[in-house]
C-alpha cells in the first residue's frame, strides 16, 4: 500500500521485503544516487514499514494506524529526519548530537527507532566522526539511514559501517508518467524533461518551469547568432535570475538550472559531432547545434563544455553571479567563433 508512492525502485522494495522477512534488516544503510531520484521518499516508507502499528504481515506502512499518521506528520517520537539547514554549508555536530541524544532513548511506541540523516554528503568531519561509534553499534532496534549522492563523498569510515544501497535512474517512460501525474500535459515537453533529467523525477520537475524553457529558447537563439551577442545575453540572463527572487539562494538555484540547460545543449552538440543522435534537442534546435559543430569542431566543443561546468562550480562556490555569467558568455563568444589560426 504505502510503498506505492515510491516510483521506479520496485526491485529494491522487493529486496527490502525479502530482507525483512528473513529478519536480516541491517542497522545502518547508506542510500546513494543522484538527487531527485526518490531516496528520501524510500527511506520514509521504509521507516513506516518498520514502525507501522497496523495489523498486517507485510513489510509496509498501512497509512491508517496512529504510528503511520504520526510519521506522516513528522511527530513520531521514534522517528527523526535530520537535514542540513539550507543556509548552512555543512551538516554540523549540533545536529548530530540531536540525533544521538534521541537514538539513545528507548523506543516510545515500542517498535524500534529510525533516524534518517539527509545531506550526508555535507557532514563535516567533526559530525561524521562523532557518529562513528553509534553507526557501528547502535542501540538495539535502531535503524539509521544516511542519504547521499555517492559513496565517494562520504568518509570511508562511514561507508564501511553501512550497507550501501544504490538507487538507479528511472526509465524515461516512468519519469514521463510521473510528470503526467504532476500535471505536465504536453507529451513532447514530458519527453524532453525525462531525457534531460537522466531518470530523476525530482530533477525533471525542477526543470519543468516554463520560464526556464523560455530562457532555453533565448539561449538557442543566442547560440545561433554569429557573432554571439554575449554581453547583451549575459545581462538578460542576470535579469532572469533576479526574477527568481531577492535571496541569493533562489537566484543560485535558478542559475544552476539554467546552466543545466546550457550543458544539455552543448552535450547534444557533442553527440552530433561524433555521429550520435541528440537526446533532448528538437529537430530545429539540432540544426542550430549542427551548425555550431561545423563551425568549430569537437575539441573546442569539449572545451566549451568544460568551461560551462566550471561556471557551475563557481555558482556552487558562491562566486558572484554577475561575474560568472559575464565570464561564461565571453568564453562562449570566443569559443564559438569559427576556427582560425
Amino acid at each position, binding site marked *: 500500500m504505502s510503498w506505492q508512492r515510491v516510483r521506479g525502485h520496485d526491485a529494491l522494495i522487493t*529486496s527490502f521485503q*525479502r*530482507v525483512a522477512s*528473513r*529478519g*536480516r*534488516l*541491517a*542497522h545502518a544503510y547508506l542510500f546513494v544516487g*543522484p538527487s531527485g531520484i526518490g531516496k528520501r521518499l524510500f527511506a520514509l516508507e521504509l521507516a513506516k514499514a518498520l514502525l507501522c502499528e497496523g495489523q498486517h504481515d507485510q513489510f509496509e506502512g498501512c497509512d491508517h494506524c496512529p504510528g503511520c499518521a504520526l510519521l506522516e506528520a513528522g511527530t513520531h517520537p521514534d522517528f527523526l529526519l535530520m537535514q542540513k539547514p539550507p543556509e548552512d554549508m555543512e551538516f554540523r555536530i549540533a545536529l548530530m548530537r540531536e540525533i544521538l541524544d534521541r537514538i539513545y532513548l528507548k523506543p516510545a511506541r515500542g517498535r*524500534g527507532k529510525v533516524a534518517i540523516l539527509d545531506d550526508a554528503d555535507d557532514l563535516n*568531519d*567533526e559530525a561524521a*566522526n562523532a557518529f*562513528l*561509534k553509534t553507526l557501528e*553499534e547502535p542501540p*538495539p*532496534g535502531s535503524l539509521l539511514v544516511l542519504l547521499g549522492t*555517492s559513496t*565517494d*563523498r562520504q568518509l*570511508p*569510515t562511514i561507508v*564501511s559501517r*553501512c*550497507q*550501501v544501497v*544504490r538507487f*538507479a*535512474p528511472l*526509465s524515461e517512460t516512468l519519469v514521463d508518467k510521473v510528470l503526467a501525474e504532476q500535471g505536465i500535459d504536453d507529451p513532447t515537453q514530458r519527453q524532453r524533461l525525462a531525457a534531460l533529467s*537522466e*531518470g530523476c523525477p525530482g530533477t525533471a520537475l525542477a526543470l519543468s518551469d516554463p520560464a526556464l524553457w523560455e530562457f532555453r529558447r533565448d539561449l538557442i537563439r543566442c547560440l545561433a547568432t554569429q557573432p554571439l551577442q554575449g554581453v547583451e545575453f549575459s545581462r538578460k540572463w542576470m535579469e532572469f535570475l533576479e526574477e527568481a527572487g531577492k535571496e541569493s539562494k533562489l537566484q543560485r538555484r535558478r542559475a544552476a538550472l539554467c546552466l543545466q540547460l546550457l*550543458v544539455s545543449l552543448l*552535450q547534444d552538440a*557533442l*553527440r*552530433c*559531432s*561524433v*555521429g*550520435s543522435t541528440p537526446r533532448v534537442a528538437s529537430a530545429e534546435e539540432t540544426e542550430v547545434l*549542427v551548425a555550431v*559543430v*561545423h*563551425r*568549430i*569542431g*569537437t*575539441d*573546442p566543443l*569539449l572545451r566549451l*563544455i*568544460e568551461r560551462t*561546468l566550471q561556471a*557551475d562550480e563557481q555558482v556552487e562556490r558562491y562566486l558572484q553571479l554577475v561575474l560568472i555569467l559575464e565570464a561564461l558568455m565571453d568564453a562562449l563568444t570566443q569559443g564559438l567563433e569559427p*576556427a*582560425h*589560426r
Partner: protein
Amino acid sequence: MARQTPSLPADPAPAEGYTVLARRYRPQRFAELVGQHAVAQALENAIKSDRVAHAYLFTGPRGVGKTSTARILAKCLNCEQGPTIQPCGVCASCKAITAGEDVDVFEMDAASNRGIDEARHLRSNVQYRPSRGRYKIYIIDEVHMLTREAFNALLKTLEEPPPHVKFILATTDAQKVPITILSRCQRFDFAGLTLPQIVGRLQDIVASEGREADPQALDLIARRAGGGMRDAQSLLDQLLSFGTEKLTAEQVYTLLGSAADDWVAELATAILAHNPAQALEALAELAGRGVQMSELVDQLLNYWRDLMVLNCAGEQVSDLNLPPHFRTTMHQQARAIPLDTILAGLDLLSSTRLRLVRSNHGRLLVEMALIRLARLEDLLPLTQLTQWVRQSGVAAGPPGAASPAPPPPKLGGLPAVEGVKKNGLMPPETGKNGHATRRLDEESLTDVWGQVLAQVGKFFAAQLEKAGLPAISRPNSLVLRFPVDYNQDRDYCSAPERVSKVEETLRKVTGEGWNFRVESSGVAISPSQVMNQPTAAAVREAEAVRTRRLKEEVEKEPIIKRAIELLGAQIVRIEEGFTLPEADATKRNESAEEA
C-alpha cells in the same frame, strides 16, 4: 602454539533484531584472528610472561583486526580469570568489553575526539583508578588524528605511565604519529589481508549461515574489499540479506552498480575502434540499467591497466582484472596501439575518475571521456603538439562524414608528455611523416609557400620568388605564374626535377599530394608589385623569428616548463618544418646555440 587455521568465532546468540555479520563474527580470541598470527603470538607471549607493555601501537590498513585485537587484549588483561591468553568470555568484564560497554575500557576514535576538551578529559581521567578491572585500558583508534594538545596530553601520560593504565593506539597512518609517541609504544604492524585469506573467511561464514555462494561471487567481493575484512563481511552481509538463496556474481554486480564484464569489453572495443557514437550508445544502455558512473570508470581503468600490462609483458602475464576468456582479444587490442596511447588513456580515465567524486554531472563527464578516448590518436611527438598549440581549433569536418584523410593532429585535450620526458629525443615514427602538416588553402598559402621555399634550397627559392605567390587553380593543384620578363627563371623552375622537388616538399609540408606547374602569366610585373612580394630573405627572417617565437612558446607550455624546472630538460631540437636545409650548417648552429 603451532600455526593453525583461524577458527571461526562462535556466533553468539543475537540480541533483539539482527546483528550484522561483522559484529557476530568479530574475533573474540587470538585464535580467531585472520592473518595476524605474528601479532597474536607476540601478545600471547607478553601476557604469559607478564611483560605487557604500557603502550602499544597497532598500525595497518582498515578492517584487518586492529580494534578486534585491542579488545581481545583488554579482555585478556581484565578477565576475572586472568590475566590470561584465553579470556573466558562469560564473566561480567568479558561480556561488557565484548559489547563495547565496559567502564574500564575506553574506546575512543581520535578523529572524533580531537578538541582541547577531550585532551583535558583524557589527562584528568587517566588519573582515576579503574572502577572494576585490573587495568584501565584506553583504545584510541586513528590516533594520528589527535590534535597537538591531545597528543601532548597523551605524551605526558606515556612518559610517566600510571601502573594501572594501558594504552592501545591504532592507526592507518603511522607516518603521522609523532616520533615522541612512537618511541614510547611497542609497535605492531598489521598486514593487509590477502585475497585467499578473505575468501576463506567468507566461505566459512557463508557455510555457517547455511547458504551457498559462487566462488566467483566471493572472489569479486574480496577484490572489492581491498584487503580489509570488515568491508568484505559487510558486503557479504548485504548480499546474503538482499540476494537469493545462492549468491551469484550477477547479484554482486547489481549490488555494486557495476557493469558485467562483457559490457565493459564491448564498451572498450568501441572506444579502441575509434567509434565514439557506439561507445555512447553502450553507455546509455548501461546507465539505463543502473550502472554507476564511478564504478564503470573504475572498470574501464582496470581494462586499460590490463591493456598496459599486456602491451608491456605479453599475453602470458598473470594477474588480469578481467576473466581469462577475454585475454586473447585484449592482447590483440593491446598490441595494436602504442604504449604511450594506452598511458594517455589511463591518464584520461584517472582524471575523470577524480572529477566524478565532486561532480554533479557524472554522466556527462563519462561521455566526454569516452569521446576523448575514442578520438585519442596514436600519440604524436612534441612537434605536432606545439603546432596544435599554435593553431586554435581546427574544424573537424561535417559530423558523420567520412573522416578526411589524414585527419589533422588532435590529442583530445591532453598534451603529449612523452615527447618532453624523453628530453627532446624524437619519439618513434608514427607511420605518417614526422612533421606537423599544414593544410594548404587560401589562408595558409603564404605560410605554406614560405615553408616550401625554406626547404628547396636558397638558389632555387630565389628563382621561385620572382613569380610571387602561386595560386591554387584547382583542389591540390598549385600554379606559379611568372611575369613576362622572367622567362629564364620560369624555364629554370619548370625543369622536371625541380617541379618534382617542389611537389615533394609540398607533400612533406602539407601531408597531401599536390600538383605543381609553372606558367607564364602573360603580363609584365610592375615595380610596386615586386615590392609587395615577400622576398626570400623576408621569408627566412620570418622563419627565424618564428623559430624563436616557437621556442619561447614551447618553453611556456606548462608541461615543458615543469620538465625544465623539475627535470632540467633542455630543448634540443624543435622539428617542425623549421628543419633547415642540410647544407645550411650555420643556421643549425644558430638554433643550437639558442637552445
